[in-house]
Every structure is written in structure tokens, then in C-alpha cells.
């Protein structure tokens, strides 16, 4: 009964990622895409909060969006898995519901 959460806003201008982290249940997945990918980068003010969830949640980033913004795989927070569009679709299909944090 797991949920796929998606976040498409930068964590520095919106509360979406923080709110998502606050409401996601163990076993859920979070996919960061569009400006949401900034939440997957190391060394930011929110990185520790994201990394702290990498054990209980599955964390993903849409690779095309991360690459476009100069966030190479090596700069991703440990435990964040890059996925392509097909991977995004698979995640949506394999979860019971999707909750989009706009």
C-alpha cells in the first residue's frame, strides 16, 4: 500500500519537499523532478533531511532534469537513484497511489 510522492519545486523557494518528507510513510517513494531535483543534490541546507530518509524511503531523481541543471550523478545525495522517463512510469504503475506535492 505504498505511495509514490512527486516533488517538482525547488526546496529553496517552496515547502513542497519538506512537507512531503514530513508526510511520507516508511516504504513510500519520492521522485524529484523538474526544479525538484535541487533537493537531491549534496551539500545543501536540506540535504541532511533528505539523506536521513534514505533508509525508510526510496528516493529517485529524474536524470534528464538533474543533468539539465548540472547535477551530475556523483553530486546526488547517497541513496538517491537516477531514473529515466520509463523509470518514472514504472514507479507510478508499481505504487498504489501518487501524491503530487505542487
Amino acid at each position, binding site marked *: 500500500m505504498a505511495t509514490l510522492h512527486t516533488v517538482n519545486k525547488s526546496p529553496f523557494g517552496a515547502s513542497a519537499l519538506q512537507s512531503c518528507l*514530513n508526510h511520507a510513510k516508511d516504504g513510500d517513494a519520492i521522485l524529484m523532478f523538474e526544479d525538484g531535483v535541487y533537493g537531491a543534490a549534496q551539500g545543501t541546507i536540506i540535504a541532511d533531511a533528505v539523506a536521513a530518509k534514505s533508509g525508510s524511503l526510496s528516493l529517485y531523481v529524474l536524470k534528464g532534469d538533474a543533468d539539465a541543471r548540472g547535477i551530475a550523478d556523483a553530486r546526488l545525495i547517497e541513496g538517491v537513484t537516477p531514473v529515466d522517463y520509463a523509470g518514472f512510469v514504472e514507479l507510478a504503475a508499481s505504487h498504489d497511489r501518487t501524491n503530487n506535492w*505542487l
Partner: protein
Amino acid sequence: MEDNIKKFLYVNRKAPYGTIYALEALEVVLIGAAFDQDVSLAFLDDGVFQLVKGQNTDGIGVKNFSPTFRALGDYEVTKFYVEKESLEERGLTADDLQEIMYEDEDDDYAEKPSIRLVNRAEMADMMAEQDVVLSF
């Protein structure tokens, strides 16, 4: 028919007038009410501002849609989950929200409050019980 009833949650996380999200959500709720599903509304983060009482939009030339929330009981939309932490972070309490009542047809039409205050963990649990989550 019972088997076809799904749990629909509309998630409101935006303040009412700065963007169109809140009004759009309300319109979708009104239209969706025709489909006889098990509907809940969630108000968290800036979404709690939608329910604040005393809104007056005369000065900004847009419609004040806050009274429409009070009509939702007629549409059998009677579950408004409001997150306590979101209220507190914004200096609000339940007393700052407008009163929203519905008539319980299964209880001799007794008037009951639609707003249910929940904490963050309860909100997360409620979200995880849904079949469909529509976010605004």
C-alpha cells in the same frame, strides 16, 4: 455499486488568492461531487489559509469563494481534515477558521462540524488510506 466507490482526497496546500490553485480545487470538488465517491479534503501548509474566516475580497476585484466551503455539505462533502501543525506555524488556531457544518442524514439530520483537526502523523495516515489523491 458499493464496490465502485473509491476514496478521493483533494489536497489543498496553497493560499486562496495569490494563485488559481485553491479556486480550481474547489471547482473540481464541486464537479466531482456528481460522481458519488467517498470524498475528503486535506488542508495543510498554506492551504489552511483558505478556511480563515473574515475574508473580504472587495478591494482586489476577485470573488471571495470562502463561503462556498459551507455549501459542500449539500454536496455530501463533509470531511475537511485540517493540520494542526500548519495552523500553529502560521499563528492560527481553530478559532480563526470559519464554521463549516453539515447535516448527517444517517443521524436524523443532526448538524455536525465538517472540520476535523488532525496532527501531522494523522494527516499522513489519512493520505495513505486513499485510492486517489488529487493535489492542488
